[in-house]
């Protein structure tokens, strides 16, 4: 890969991150310029107490001074304090990180089944398999993920009792080791499948149209002319080339699945980033929301950068030699 390509992509990602920081500051300090006052209105705080809260939440001085202080704080890895629990935002986020990685990671893996289905559908465009797969993916695309979650809970947890109604583990569970992991897996299956169902359609549609584009290429005719069997042509010549659009989609989808986790986690009481976001909305707990937004955006920006670089690596035409 050309060095210019890599540097360009990295700088682009950095500029997006800077934009998010400015946007974040603008939202929580300019649009909503005094969160302390609006939150503690009518609670009879003494001026002294208000003063201390202002200092704690970094609301002193002009907007410019506040912005400089905010950036300095960020660079120190400090995201301020939650208004609700008074704990550092970074602590709350780091506790919630692992459950979300587990959930989003598992759902992404399950949703990637869509790639396989999409390839098959695109290869045999117009077949019954294609028609079924396409209409199924349109259907799942139209369902809000939280509603799929409610229906799944109602059927598989409340009525049939196959799965627990929520949480990461059974409440007050004393299991350890392998049993604890199995219990966690039991709790994970339902929310992970729900998220996967909501996003499997996008994988399928993109993989399908990538396959259709590839199937028109001359090199497939060449491969056939060489006498390769249809299955070989698909596996070794079509599929690898249809991978590219799927790579860029994966980054976009990562953002969607992470966003979808907000509502799904709160339905399944899954103690992750999404549930924390839902908690912070109901407060509203502004420092928490600000920190979560920054964190989620940074994760998505990184995923996009990774996908861009991977794309450049897989397709040298993009990155230059």
């Amino acid at each position, binding site marked *: 890969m050309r060095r210019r390509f890599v540097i360009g992509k990295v700088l*682009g*990602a950095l*500029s*997006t991150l800077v*934009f*998010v920081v400015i*946007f*974040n500051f603008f*939202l*929580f300090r300019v*649009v*909503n310029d005094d969160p302390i006052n609006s939150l503690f209105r009518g609670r009879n705080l003494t001026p002294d107490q208000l003063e201390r809260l202002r200092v704690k939440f970094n609301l002193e001085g002009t907007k410019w001074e506040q912005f400089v202080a905010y950036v300095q704080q960020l660079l120190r890895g400090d995201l301020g304090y939650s208004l609700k629990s008074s704990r550092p935002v970074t602590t709350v986020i780091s506790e919630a990180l692992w459950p979300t990685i587990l959930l989003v990671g598992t759902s992404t893996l399950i949703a990637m089944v869509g790639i396989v289905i999409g390839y098959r559908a695109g290869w045999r*465009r117009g077949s019954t398999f294609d028609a079924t797969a396409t209409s199924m993916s*349109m*259907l799942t*695309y*139209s*369902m*809000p993920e*939280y*509603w799929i979650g*409610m*229906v799944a*809970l*109602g059927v598989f947890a*409340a*009525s049939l009792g196959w799965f627990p*109604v929520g949480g990461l583990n059974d409440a007050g569970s004393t299991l350890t080791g392998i049993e604890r992991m199995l219990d966690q897996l039991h709790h994970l299956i339902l929310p992970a499948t729900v998220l996967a169902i909501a996003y499997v359609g996008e994988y399928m549609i993109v993989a399908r*149209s990538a396959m*259709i584009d590839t199937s028109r290429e001359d090199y497939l005719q060449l491969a056939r002319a060489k006498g390769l069997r249809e299955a070989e042509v698909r596996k070794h010549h079509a599929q690898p080339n249809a991978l590219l659009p799927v790579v860029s989609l994966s980054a976009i989808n990562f*953002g*969607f699945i*992470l*966003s*979808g986790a*907000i*509502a799904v986690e*709160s*339905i399944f009481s899954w103690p992750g980033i999404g549930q924390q*976001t*839902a908690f912070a*909305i*109901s407060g*509203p707990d*502004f420092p928490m*929301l*600000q920190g*979560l*937004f920054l964190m*989620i*955006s940074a994760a*998505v*920006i990184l995923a*996009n950068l990774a996908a861009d670089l991977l794309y450049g690596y897989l397709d040298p035409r993009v990155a230059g030699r």
Partner: protein
Amino acid sequence: MKRNVSSAWRRLASDKLAMISLFVLIAFIVMAIVTPWVSSREDINPVNTGDNPTWASPSREFLLGTDYLGRSVALQVMWGSRVSLFVGLAATLLTIVIGTLVGITAGFFGGWGDAILMRFTDWFLVIPFLPTAIVLASVLERSIWTIVFVIGITSWPSTARLVRSQVLSVRSRLYVDRARALGAGRAHLIRRHIFPNVLPLIMASTTLAVPISILTETTLSFLGLGDPTEVSWGSILNEARQKGAVTRGAWWYYMPPGVAIVMVVLAFTLFGRALETVLDPRLRER
């Protein structure tokens, strides 16, 4: 122009799925419009539902049962359609207006203005859409207009990109050069040549943006960011979940709003795709 419209319509009318979708959409829009005539908003005000049974399953009196306050679920879904459809359509309009303005400006004028606008568009494309909408909605006042604004301000970038690329291709065509050579000004070029050629694309992208706006509206109100004084499909689902409809097995409370969302979103998506295919022949082979 007129002939184009009628031939496009004929092609659309031969698409069975598109016609079913259109029928579903019209049915929902009619429901949203007539609801205030066939019922009163006071019928689902908890103050007036004290005598109704609570958590009643569907019966002849309450076709879709009642909720924890004895309010009819059917009526809530009907009133909810008004907010969900209105916000979906209004937010789409805002999205398309911003996206078209940015796209035409960037594509037609080019240069550093284009560079800045596209940088801005890229930022908005990369940062995740729903979390942005959530933080925006949470610092603003809770109202229907906030939701419209929030969806519009977060979802214009893909329209802007689409419009820009179309403008770039139209701008370099011969008849535009000819018009310019004959002394046409910028305003004239945009109005007479660029805009009419971008319009079909804008129409298809509008129909495809509506389902996304509706889904976003329901998600935001499900998360409690909607107007607390209005009923929307998302807010019904939010209340159903909070009051434990799922664990109680009160399927009549959480199934109807969800099915309504799926039907409307699916119908808009299918109709939009059919429209796109009719307007853009290159897609027809798909």
